């Protein structure tokens, strides 16, 4: 889980003579770092907590109050006269406001929407139709009248409900069921896995040639690769889209296909792949290569039997990069795969939900969490390789 850096030089112990001053510095460092960490994690924690909350609570109270009882103004309609029973000469209507097992309770109630706090639980209010009503804390009520009830329309009762904190996976069930996130999840995987694997082999051969073969134009090619590292994707979109459309109308096929996006991601990922792998391969010990050459091994053999296995860390670094980048990409997917219901990837779906259901936070939070869980798992389990790649990949 920890970020590892290759050289771990030991930090020298603070000197005793500076003890007091350094202590204060330390305290300040602890506080400042803690503040930054909280600042950085707070938004993500909020998303996760919110996605697990009951959707009615989510919209009325901040997620930081998730463990606190929330209050909500609600109303209930009382039953009609035909449910009355006669007891000792009185007429009674009994019932429950809450569904059994909901854990809710009444904080106060009233008979008008403007008088939510007219009475506390257990107290009695007189009703406009007839008789008096007593509502208990657990939501059970008793409406008593001396004469028979005759009303044909159930009167309403207004109350403040106390809702205990409730965590649930319902939001996830809903979002997977109805909003197409499940489908998009599969689409994202379909796009990502081939787009991660295909470039690696192609890049590895090229990187070997640029690192260990002697030929004229090598320096120039390295420069070209470094240049291409920073070419904005925006430059490629329109010509490629036109090219894809051209091919599609020529062959009579479709222009927005998975094959198209796999190849596009391959092309876009190659400069970084070649750059990372070449740097790594160039750092492999020269003696091994040369002695293998003297023993008569061909370049092809050296590459497949020695360099490729030795380069595993760099291959892993690039694979993680490419996986995260493709999984998180919105632009390439929108342009080359389109926005149809069938082909939307997770990022595209999330963006669509932001537009169409911008206020349904139960859907947005759980949807977003589904979309970030895979990269987070990859990231935390393979962080070492990721960091190593980052250090090697930034052009020095």
């Amino acid at each position, binding site marked *: 889980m920890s970020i590892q850096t290759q050289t771990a030089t030991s930090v020298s112990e603070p000197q005793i003579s500076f003890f007091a001053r350094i202590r204060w510095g330390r305290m300040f460092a602890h506080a*400042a770092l803690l503040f930054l960490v909280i600042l950085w994690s707070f938004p993500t924690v909020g998303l996760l907590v919110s996605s697990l909350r009951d959707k009615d609570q989510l919209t009325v109270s901040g997620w930081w109050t998730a463990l606190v009882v929330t209050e909500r103004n609600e109303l209930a309609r009382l039953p009609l006269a035909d449910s009355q029973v006669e007891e000792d000469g009185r007429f009674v209507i009994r019932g429950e406001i809450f569904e059994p097992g909901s854990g809710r309770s009444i904080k106060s109630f009233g008979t008008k929407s403007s008088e939510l706090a007219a009475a506390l639980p257990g107290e009695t209010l007189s009703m406009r139709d007839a008789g008096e009503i007593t509502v208990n804390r657990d939501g059970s009520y008793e409406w008593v009248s001396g004469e028979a009830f005759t009303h044909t329309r159930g009167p309403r009762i207004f109350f403040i409900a106390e809702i205990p904190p409730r965590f649930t996976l319902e939001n996830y069930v809903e979002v997977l069921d109805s909003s197409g996130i499940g489908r998009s999840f599969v*689409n994202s995987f379909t796009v990502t896995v081939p787009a991660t694997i295909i470039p690696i082999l192609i890049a590895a051969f090229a990187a070997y040639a640029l690192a260990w073969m002697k030929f004229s134009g090598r320096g120039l090619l390295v420069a070209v690769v470094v240049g291409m590292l920073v*070419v904005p994707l925006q430059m490629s979109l329109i010509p490629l889209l036109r090219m894809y459309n051209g091919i599609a109308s020529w062959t009579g096929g479709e222009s927005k296909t998975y094959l198209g996006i796999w190849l596009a991601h391959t092309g876009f990922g190659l400069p970084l792949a070649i750059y990372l792998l070449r740097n790594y391969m160039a750092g492999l010990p020269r003696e091994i290569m040369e002695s293998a050459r003297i023993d008569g091994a061909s370049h092809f053999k050296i590459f497949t039997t020695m360099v490729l296995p030795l380069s595993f860390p760099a291959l892993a670094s690039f694979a993680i990069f490419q996986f995260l980048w493709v999984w998180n990409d919105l*632009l390439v997917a929108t342009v080359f795969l389109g926005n149809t219901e069938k082909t939307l990837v997770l*990022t595209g779906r999330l*963006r669509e939900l932001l537009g169409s259901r911008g206020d349904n936070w139960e859907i947005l939070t759980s*949807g977003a969490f589904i979309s970030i869980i895979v*990269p987070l798992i990859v990231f935390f389990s393979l962080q070492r390789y990721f960091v190593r790649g*980052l250090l090697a990949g930034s052009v020095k």
Partner: protein
Amino acid sequence: MFEQVTSAFLTILIGVVACFIYFWGTNWLLDRFLRSDGPGLSGRQSVQRDTLRSRIRPWLFLFPALFFMGVYLAYPVFATLWLALHDRTATNFVGLANFTWALTDPRFLQAAGNNLLWLIVVPTASTGFGLLVAVLADRLWWGNIAKSLIFMPMAISFVGASVIWKFVFDFRGPDADQIGVLNALVQMFGGSPQAWITVPFWNNFFLMIILIWIQTGFAMVILSAALRGIPEETLEAARIDGATDIQIFFGIMIPQIFPTILVVWTTITITVLKVFDIVLAMTNGQWDTQVLANLMFDWMFRGGGDSGRSSTIALFIMFAVLPIMVWNIRNVNSEETTR
């Protein structure tokens, strides 16, 4: 759906097998048809064939990569240049009309202005925070955990991050309970809640926060490694001379890692220039938050698409990247000659 998953796995299989057949096959063919130890070869011919083989082989290794980079990156650069000089359907040559349009269009100018703002704020803030965290975390026992947490947003997509932050910025009427953290804090301190992302000019900064949140981890990792690379003796010597922590930081650490700071800065700058997802997801350019990459995307599809204007905007982004590209290439070249 099943079909699509099978086709994905089939593609992986076909791709990997095809790569191997290509690389192995071409090598085999080369060795077969340009043998140097065949019968009836004079010594000179044999040597000639050796050199010829070793000249051809690198290109066999390089060909697939060069092909893909050529088709997907090099050709489009020239095609975009060509398209920028043509009209919306790329049928008629219009000279520099698209460029004059861009430089007089208020929406383009606004997007360019916003981009400039992003370019100033985001790399500065990300590098600054990254450096701060790196310096603090290296001194504390729980520094690695802290670094992990601050690094985490790097794994989150721009769209995912937009959802996370839109929730932070959420606004619910002045009298309601706020469910967005920011407005809740504002309310707590007696301010009046606002729909932050709709307040022109300042909303740009609220969008920038998202990218800073993501990029700080990147800056932190690189700078932390650079800080550890500073020789301990240098710091020790300064301490013995009685330098304070602040003096050590500004007098020794910063100058020592300055090249790395530049690298981080330029890398983030390039990311900023391409920023698109965040603006699209948060505002889609409304309330004066447009940026070039999003404007380009807009023109690409609006009303059937305008390839001329869209390409022109892409070129402006490319122009902005160009100095960094040249600088990178020069650095790598000078490294190459010393290798």
